[in-house]
C-alpha cells in the first residue's frame, strides 16, 4: 500500500490547494490591503494545529489511514466515523464542483449548461479516481509543472504593471473581514481530509508532507496576495477572479493574453482535486467491502458521483440555496470534524495491529 513518497504527497496537496485558490475562495474575501496577508498566516498556523491529531495518528498507526484502526477497534465505531467522514468529504466535493462550474461559466464558456460542465469534469475525475491514488499523484506533478510555468510567465510580465505604492502597512479594515477571510481559508483546506485517508499510502514520514505543504501553501498564497495588491491595487475589491484578470493582462511575445492558459491549468488542478476526493471515497467503500469485487465498488463510486452531480445541480443553480450552502461551508465545521475530530478519536480509541503468533511482523 505504500505507494508514494512524502514529497509527492506534498506536491499533490499544493496542486489541490492551488485549484482552490482560484475556484473555491469567493472573490469577496480577497480584498485590497494588508489584512489578508495576516489572515493567511493565522489560518495556516491554525491548520497546522488542526493537522496535529492526524499527524500523531499517522505516527501511531503506521501504514494505515484513520479507518482501519477504527474498524479494528469496533466495526460500529468505524462505521460511525466513516459516515461522518463521508458527509464532510461530500461537502468538499460539492463545494469544488459548484465553484468550478461557476468559474467555467463566468470566465470560459458563459453559455455552457451547468449540468454539462459538471458532468464532463466529474467523468474525468471519476476516471482518475479509478486509476488510483498513485496515478493521481503522478498526474499532479504534471499539473504542478504547468502551474509553475504559468506563474513564471505571469511573473515575468508583471514588472511593468506592478506598483509598490499600492501596498500600505496598516490595518484599517474592521476585524470582521480578518475573521471571515481566515475561516474561509481554513474551510478550503480540504487536504487535511485527504491526509487522514491516505497517510498510510506514504512510504515514510507522511508528516513531512504536511510541513512542506503548509510552508509551500503559505508562500504561494502570500505570493498571490502580494501579486494581486501590486498589480490591481484597490480595484482588487471589485474582482471575483483576480488571478484570471492578471493573467489576461499578461502579454508574452506572441501570446497577447494568458487567461486561456490560466483556465486550462486551473481546471486541470481542480479535476485532480476532485479525482483525489473521489479516490478517498472509493478507499472508504473498499474498506467496508466484504469481497474484493472491483466492479461493484466502481459502480458504487459512479452512483455516488451521479448523486453528487444531482445535488451540485440543485445547489448551484439557485442563488439562495448556493449562498446558504456557502455560508455553511465557511464555518469550517466539516474540516474540523473530518480532519481533526475523527483522527483524534481514532488516536484515542483506535486499536493497534497485534503481533502475529510467532511472527515478527504486524498483521491486522
Amino acid at each position, binding site marked *: 500500500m505504500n505507494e508514494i513518497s512524502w514529497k509527492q504527497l506534498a506536491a499533490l496537496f499544493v496542486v489541490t490547494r492551488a485549484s482552490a485558490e482560484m475556484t473555491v475562495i469567493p472573490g469577496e474575501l480577497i480584498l485590497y490591503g494588508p489584512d489578508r496577508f495576516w489572515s493567511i498566516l493565522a489560518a495556516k498556523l491554525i491548520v497546522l494545529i488542526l493537522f496535529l491529531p492526524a499527524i500523531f495518528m499517522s505516527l501511531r498507526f503506521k501504514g494505515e489511514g484513520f479507518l482501519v484502526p477504527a474498524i479494528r477497534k469496533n466495526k460500529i465505531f468505524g462505521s460511525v466515523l466513516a459516515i461522518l467522514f463521508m458527509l464532510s468529504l461530500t461537502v468538499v466535493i460539492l463545494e469544488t464542483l459548484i465553484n468550478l462550474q461557476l468559474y467555467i461559466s463566468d470566465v470560459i464558456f458563459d453559455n455552457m*449548461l451547468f449540468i454539462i460542465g459538471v458532468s464532463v469534469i466529474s467523468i474525468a475525475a471519476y476516471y482518475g479516481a479509478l486509476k488510483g491514488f498513485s496515478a493521481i499523484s503522478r498526474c499532479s506533478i504534471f499539473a504542478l509543472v504547468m502551474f509553475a510555468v504559468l506563474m513564471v510567465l505571469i511573473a515575468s510580465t508583471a514588472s511593468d504593471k506592478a506598483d509598490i505604492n499600492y501596498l500600505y502597512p496598516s490595518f484599517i479594515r474592521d476585524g470582521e473581514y480578518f475573521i471571515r477571510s481566515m475561516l474561509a481559508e481554513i474551510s478550503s483546506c480540504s487536504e487535511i481530509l485527504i491526509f487522514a485517508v491516505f497517510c498510510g499510502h506514504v512510504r515514510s514520514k507522511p508528516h513531512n508532507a504536511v510541513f512542506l505543504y503548509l510552508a509551500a501553501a503559505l508562500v504561494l498564497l502570500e505570493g498571490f496576495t502580494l501579486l494581486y495588491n501590486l498589480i490591481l491595487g484597490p480595484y482588487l475589491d471589485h474582482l471575483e477572479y483576480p488571478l484570471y484578470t492578471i493573467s489576461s493582462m499578461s502579454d508574452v511575445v506572441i501570446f497577447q493574453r494568458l487567461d486561456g492558459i490560466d483556465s486550462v491549468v486551473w481546471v486541470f488542478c481542480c479535476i485532480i482535486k476532485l479525482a483525489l476526493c473521489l479516490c478517498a471515497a472509493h478507499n472508504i467503500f473498499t474498506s467496508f467491502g466484504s469481497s474484493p469485487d472491483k466492479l461493484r465498488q466502481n459502480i458504487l463510486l459512479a452512483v455516488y458521483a451521479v448523486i453528487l452531480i444531482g445535488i451540485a445541480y440543485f445547489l448551484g443553480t439557485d442563488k439562495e440555496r448556493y449562498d446558504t450552502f456557502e455560508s455553511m461551508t465557511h464555518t469550517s465545521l466539516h474540516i474540523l470534524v473530518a480532519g481533526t475530530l475523527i483522527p483524534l478519536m481514532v488516536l484515542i480509541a483506535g486499536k493497534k495491529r497485534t503481533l502475529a503468533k510467532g511472527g515478527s511482523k504486524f498483521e491486522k
Partner: protein
Amino acid sequence: MAKLKRLIALISALILPLCLSGCIQYVELSERGIVQAVGVDYLPDSKVYRMSLQYFFQSGEGGQNQIDKTQPNVLKSVGEGVSVFDAAEDASVKTGKDLLFSENRLIIIGNELAKYDLEGTLSFFVSNYHSHPRAYVAAAKNTAEEIIDIRFKEGNVSTDKLTNMITNASRRGTSPDCRIYDAMISLSYSSRSAYLPLLEVKEEKTDVTVSQESGSSQGQGGSGGGEEEQKEKTVVISGGAAFSQGKLTGTGTRGDSAGIQLITGDTPELSVSVRTDDDSKAATVTLFKLDIKTIPKISDGKLSFKIDGFGFGRYEERVFLSDGDDEAENELTLKVEQTVVKSMTDALEKIKTQYGCDAFGFEKLLLHSYPDFWYDNRDNISELIRTAPVEIAFRCQPYIEGIAN
C-alpha cells in the same frame, strides 16, 4: 494487449475533446464581428446610449496576403439602447454578427457621456471577461462617433493608427496613455479620478485617411482643387480629459498632459525647447533618465506634497553653446529646469486644484505612506488632496555626447 489499450486510450484522449465543442453554442468565425474600436456616446434628448463600432471586414482577407489593403478593412456599425449593453446588442442585431470584443484595442468616450458615470460605462467592458483588458481608453472632444468615422490607411486595420498615436505620445512624454484596467484602478480610489487622452477631429493637409465612399486611398477631402480641398479630416491628441468623482470636470492641454506624465514618473523622455533670450533661436533639450518622486507630508495635521525630480539633458541642437561657455550652459539648464517646473505647476493648478482630478496618484501615495491619516479623513480625502500645497523641485544635468562635440 496492454499496448493496444494504451494506444486506444491515447487516441480517445486526443479525439474525444474535439466533441466537447458540441457542449456549447459556438459561433463560426465568419459570423463574428471582430470589434477593433468602440465609441460610446450618450444622446441626452432621447436618453439613449449610442455605440459606434469599427469591426474587421473579413472580405478583405484571403489569397496570399491576410489583409487586402485595397479594400476598406474595417466597417462601421452603430447601435442604440438604454444601457451600453443594450446599445451593443442593437449594434450586433444590425450587423447580423455576434460581436467579439476580445480584439478591441480602443474605447472612446464621447463628450456628452463623459459628463455621466465613467466607471459605469467602462464596467461593461471589464465585467465581460472576454473584452481585451489591455484596450486603451480615450475621450473624444465632441462625439466618439466622429472619431470612429475616420479611417486611416496605415496599420493592418484603421484602429492601429489611433492606438499607435496614443502609444507614441506616451513614449514621448506628451500624453499619458490609459488602459482600461488603469482607469478602473484609478476610479477605485475615493476621488474616483481618471485622466484620458483627448482625441479631436481636425482638418489638416495630410493624406493619411481613406475615403469611406470609394474605399480608395484618396483622402476624405478629395484630391482636386486648391489648398482648401486638399485638407482632410484626421484625428489628433489635443490634450486630456480630467475626471473627478467619475465625471468629466474639464480638459487639459498637451502641456498639462506632459506635466501630469512627468509627476507620475511615467515619462521615459521629454523634449523641452527653450530660449535664453527673446531673440535667440530656441534650443531643444531632451530630458532622459528622469527620476521624479512625489512624497506626501503631514505636518501639524496638514497635508502637503513634495515633488523632487532629476533628469539628464541632451542638447538636440547646439545652436549657441560654444565649448567652455559655462555661463550660457548654466543659463540654458536653468531655463530647462524652470520650464519643467512650470509645466508641472500648471498641470497641478489646472487639473488638481481647478478640476479636482487626482491624475497624479496622490491618494495612492498618501494611503501608502499615511494609511491612518487616509482612514481618519477618508470621507474628505478628495478635498484635502485638491487643496494640498505642492512643492516642486527639479534639477537637470546636461549630458554632452555625440559627434557634434
